[in-house]
């Protein structure tokens, strides 16, 4: 041991020399967190559960949104003419007819395409039947063209009886691939193209075919469709053209594509039980996460109360101690999120070829990360209240 010479030092010594910020608070937070493995495990279970549940709820929400709006997102027209009272794009009925020519006479309109959509009965080749949603359009003149074609081709659909089906619904439709037969509303059809991941929110498979064939299947007259898709000339004012078309078609409704998209999504999400179920699930995930993290952080803080009191006695500010608690919460959030997101992505991968459309985007992942951190910070409040009320005098034996 060295003598008093090396021990001595004035009270002002610490103030001398260049200054920099030390980094002990993160180290203390990290060590406290990882010191008690069981407590950490419980915390992480809570966060992982929340992250997976939140990811599922929001992934399903995005999936539903994309599924509902898929047909709308694949069309080119700025304006949609639809039957009055249409709630959603996949809740179609038929327009009175000849809207195409009326709309074409409106100044500012460049092109109009008729889209025929309607429910029909699909009779399976080996017996039994199911309801499908037939979509007919003339894609050669700018109408809706089936996308994600993985087998056959769209051109083949021009041949007699041909339809396109999605691979996801092979089992429901009792088909295995190109050439398989079926009947739609009594009309014999054959699979001429196979698409991938064109899912329907209503779970009724989309069947794509030509406009003429769809009109026959759905019992519509020639020139009668469910929707008229209106493309505008460059430099046309969409609001003015919308008003003009509406004035000419009082028995139909004219909406911008974005407005019809929002109406379709809002209908399914907020006028049916689907939306409330998702919202309830999301709220549950956040509540469970907050409660579990709050409990474990509080318990961890109680376990280290004497240390926090010592810190306070050593002169640590309340802010410093709060920083330690918040860093513990932050580290929990980062580790829990990493584990939860890995698990989520694995599950999403497994769901890829099912009818469940769950979507994860970089933006959603970032939002979930921020939510997880916010959740853990919120959970730290009870621990912070505990720790700022510490009496530093407790460090002395009385």
């Amino acid at each position, binding site marked *: 041991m060295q003598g008093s010479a090396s*021990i*001595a030092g004035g*009270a002002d010594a610490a103030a001398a020399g260049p*200054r*920099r910020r030390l980094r002990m608070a993160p180290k203390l937070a990290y060590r406290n967190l990882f010191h008690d493995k069981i407590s950490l495990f419980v915390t992480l279970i809570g966060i992982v559960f929340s992250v997976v549940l939140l990811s599922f709820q929001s992934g399903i929400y995005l999936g539903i949104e994309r599924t509902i709006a898929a047909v709308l997102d694949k069309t080119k027209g700025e304006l949609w003419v639809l039957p009055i009272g249409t709630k959603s794009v996949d809740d179609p009925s038929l327009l009175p007819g000849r809207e195409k020519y009326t709309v074409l006479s409106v100044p500012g309109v460049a092109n109009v395409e008729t889209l025929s959509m309607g429910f029909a009965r699909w009779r399976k080749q080996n017996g039994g039947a199911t309801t499908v949603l037939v979509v007919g359009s003339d894609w050669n003149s700018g109408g809706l063209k089936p996308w994600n074609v993985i087998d056959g081709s769209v051109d083949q659909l021009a041949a007699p009886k041909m339809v396109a089906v999605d691979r996801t619904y092979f089992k429901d439709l009792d088909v295995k691939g190109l050439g398989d037969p079926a009947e739609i509303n009594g009309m014999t059809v054959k699979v001429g193209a196979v698409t991938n991941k064109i899912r329907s929110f209503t779970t009724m498979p989309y069947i794509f075919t030509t406009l003429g064939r769809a009109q026959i299947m759905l019992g519509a007259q020639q020139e009668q469709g469910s929707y008229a898709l209106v493309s505008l000339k460059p430099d046309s004012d969409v609001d003015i053209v919308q008003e003009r078309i509406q004035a000419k078609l009082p028995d139909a409704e004219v909406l911008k594509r974005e407005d019809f998209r929002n109406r379709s999504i809002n209908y399914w999400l907020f006028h049916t039980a689907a939306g409330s179920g998702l919202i309830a699930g999301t709220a549950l995930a956040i509540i469970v996460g907050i409660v579990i993290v709050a409990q474990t952080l509080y318990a961890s803080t109680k376990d280290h109360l004497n240390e926090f009191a010592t810190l306070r006695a*050593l*002169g*640590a500010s309340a802010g410093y101690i709060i920083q330690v608690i918040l860093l513990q919460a932050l580290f929990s959030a980062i580790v829990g999120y990493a584990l939860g997101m890995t698990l989520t992505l694995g599950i999403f991968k497994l769901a890829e070829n099912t009818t469940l459309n769950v979507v994860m985007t970089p933006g959603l992942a970032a939002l979930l990360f921020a939510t997880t951190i916010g959740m853990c910070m919120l959970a730290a409040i009870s621990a912070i209240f505990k720790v700022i009320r510490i009496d530093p005098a407790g460090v*002395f*034996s009385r």
Partner: protein
Amino acid sequence: MIQSKSDGAKPSPILVADGIVKVFGTGAGEVQVLKGVHLDLLPGELTLLMGPSGSGKTTLLSILGCILRQTEGDLVIANTKTNKLSAEAMADLRRNHVGFVFQSYNLFPTLTALENVMLALDVRGRMPADAPQRAKNALDSVGLSHRINTYPAKLSGGEKQRVAIARALAGSPSVMLADEPTAALDSENGQSVMQLMSDVSKDASRAVLCVTHDHRILKYADRIIRIEDGVISTDERPKDDPVARANMERLSAEGAH
């Protein structure tokens, strides 16, 4: 820097407590633990605060360390009157002027010896760039340079208390307050720790006060204050007073047995 004790005029006290009263509870449950304590701590002195259990030693120590507020009276540390300071200002005073050594060490079990000392520097906010070196020096000065990366669980009681002293020293406090620093130690480690405390007190810019029941360590004292029933009963400097020295030697010998 070494500042030796002045042989001339009496140095100014670093800490002055004047008429300290502490009351716990209210109404029928009211207990007056301190009943008007007058005390000053001089730099370069090791003062022992002794007294029976319940006499108010620890309460006084807590007040002198700015972690408990007195009910009445004035406390001045490093020319700062504490009476109307906020809790954060009191914390600021502690981290800049007071070092603590606790009976049960109060080390952070998840941090190494070096990290424990660095933590005491870290709570001070912005510190010199040589803070890690400063922490190493503090551990070196208490003879633990070979144990800097050891966790408290692997240290002996004496070593733990040395780390605690190094932690208190690292911030270069004006006042060092120790609560029964030898109570959990065997005789050899206790003597060693007290020798260290005595060395620490030789700094002419620092005053050291130890609360103790341990008569074996009386020989290290420059000054012995006895407190009984909330008031100071005796305040002696054995090295200057033959009667007090004889009394101390007798008690010290009794303690050794």
